């Protein structure tokens, strides 16, 4: 019987929300689920790991992310425990780590950024051409790896109360090729756009860097992340890590509020899978209105503060 592995990514020793999506997906398949976690104390995650058959706990004196150490260790775990399907999240770390693991296992295949998965039939679907099209692949590989797009698969609570058994695994410490020597934190504490439930985004219509504060305030009321169009990034109103679109981040929130964004195809493909899109634009002809679920034609400098007030009253 095949086993399914899930890589549990911790960030500042916190469980990522999308880990639950990966775990639910694995548990739903009915196969034995192995959760692999780099932690000296996985007990603190007992609640979310319920229903998992086995926790493979990787111990080391220094568990900070090092790509070669993590990839060598995970490749060994996958082959030793026969984890024929191995799921992770398409996060910044997942995008760095998973290709390295797949490369180290002979005949392993990997598809990144999956939005549909049929493990029994070995097929996966992922957006291509920035989501203009979807591509379904069949994987003929004995070991199949996947990263899933956050916010796509449901995270259901476990119906099993069984606590997993824990197996300790020693990290594989080959001499590293690339070495992370420092993490440079960004000043502001930001919400991860790819995991955000709500995103407020600004475009060239914002007109100046200072005016992003307006969106920031709206975002605070909504507990939302703040995104931007490329035009806003190019004009240096916003930073590149905020850019949504074909050459920025592809996001998938429940609610996306586009303010002063025209709706160019390269922007649209980065946010079109949002459950609900709201557009605020002063030009009634702006293409964004053809793509939004709800639109308000008006000056964002008027509408956004009003919207903030109204939400403060209602949330």
């Amino acid at each position, binding site marked *: 019987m095949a086993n399914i592995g899930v890589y549990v990514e911790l960030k500042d020793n916190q469980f990522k929300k999308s880990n639950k999506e990966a775990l639910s997906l694995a548990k739903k398949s009915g196969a034995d689920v192995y959760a692999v976690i780099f932690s000296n104390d996985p007990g603190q995650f007992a609640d979310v790991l319920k229903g998992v058959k086995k926790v493979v706990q990787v111990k080391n004196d220094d568990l900070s992310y090092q790509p070669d150490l993590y990839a060598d260790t995970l490749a060994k775990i996958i082959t030793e425990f026969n984890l024929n399907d191995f799921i992770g999240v398409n996060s910044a770390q997942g995008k760095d780590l998973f290709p390295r693991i797949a490369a180290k296992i002979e005949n392993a295949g*990997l598809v990144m950024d999956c939005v549909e998965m049929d493990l029994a039939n070995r097929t996966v679907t992922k957006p291509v051409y920035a989501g203009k099209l979807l591509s379904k*692949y069949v994987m003929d590989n004995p070991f199949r790896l996947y990263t899933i797009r956050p916010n796509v698969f449901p995270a259901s609570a476990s119906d099993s109360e069984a606590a997993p058994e824990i197996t300790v695994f020693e990290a594989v410490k080959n001499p590293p*090729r690339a070495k992370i020597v*420092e993490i440079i934190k960004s000043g502001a504490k930001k919400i991860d756009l790819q995991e955000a439930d709500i995103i407020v985004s600004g475009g060239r219509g914002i007109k100046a860097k200072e005016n992003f504060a307006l969106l920031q305030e709206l975002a605070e009321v909504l507990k939302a992340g703040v995104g931007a169009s490329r035009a806003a990034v190019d004009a240096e109103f916003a930073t590149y890590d905020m850019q949504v679109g074909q050459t920025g981040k592809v996001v998938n929130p429940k609610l996306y509020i586009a303010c002063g964004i025209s709706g160019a195809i390269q922007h649209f493909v980065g946010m079109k899978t949002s459950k*609900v*899109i709201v557009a605020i634009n002063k030009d009634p002809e702006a293409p964004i209105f*053809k793509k939004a*679920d709800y*639109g308000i*034609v008006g000056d964002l400098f008027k509408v956004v503060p009003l919207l903030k007030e109204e939400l403060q009253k209602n949330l």
Partner: protein
Amino acid sequence: MNIYVAIKQVPDTEASLLVKDGVSINETDIKWILSPYDEYALEEALKLKEKIPGSTVTVISLGPNRVESAIRTGLAMGAENAIHIETAEPFPDHKIIAAALGNAIKQDAGYGIIFMGKQAIDDDSYLTHIYLAEHLGIPVATNVIAFNHDNGKVVVEREIDEGAREKIEMSVPCVVGATKGLNTPRYASLMGIMKAKKIPIKKLSLQDAGIAQLDNKIKREKLYAPPEKPQGRIIPGEPEDAVKELVRVLKEEAKVL
């Protein structure tokens, strides 16, 4: 240093794409461009060449005949050598693509740094540069937004979540996966374009690049357009009223608040 840049030709970002036979796009009428992240890769390679006297920049691309125009663009921007691995059709198994590119680079000359994009904007697979580095057994960093080379050592910064960065040290040879923000790609000059026309392109078959037979383990079963979103509605009225109505529908109809 012999610097290499792997470049992929992709449909223009404006292009509307139609599916031809259920598994591939209709290529007639498509305008092709160099994948944007590969432009950052190439620019960084050219800057490095200017810094290290006696260096060369070679662009390499795998694909059908049409990719020659992407190669010419690379040459016009300032690369002086080119390799084309000729394949009849694009194929989805990136392990094979990476192995072919890696083998071709290894056979060509002693290689230093290989610049690539963090992602090609057609398949958006995020794989090839990392596979290539692993195939050659050399270090790789992806999503690189700052690059520095000094005394045979490479130090890069790679963007992780929310503007934070990892600073990474690597020895040469290594692979650098470029992202936006690394630099501003130059335009090809008229002289560059003229010069590029005369540069011979080294042609290789997949066999020449060490791929004896094409055994795609990953196959595309279906390519299709996602369902269109139905047209939404404009909420009319003065801003004060429109905003009230918007909050109401978001709560009661869409249930997203």
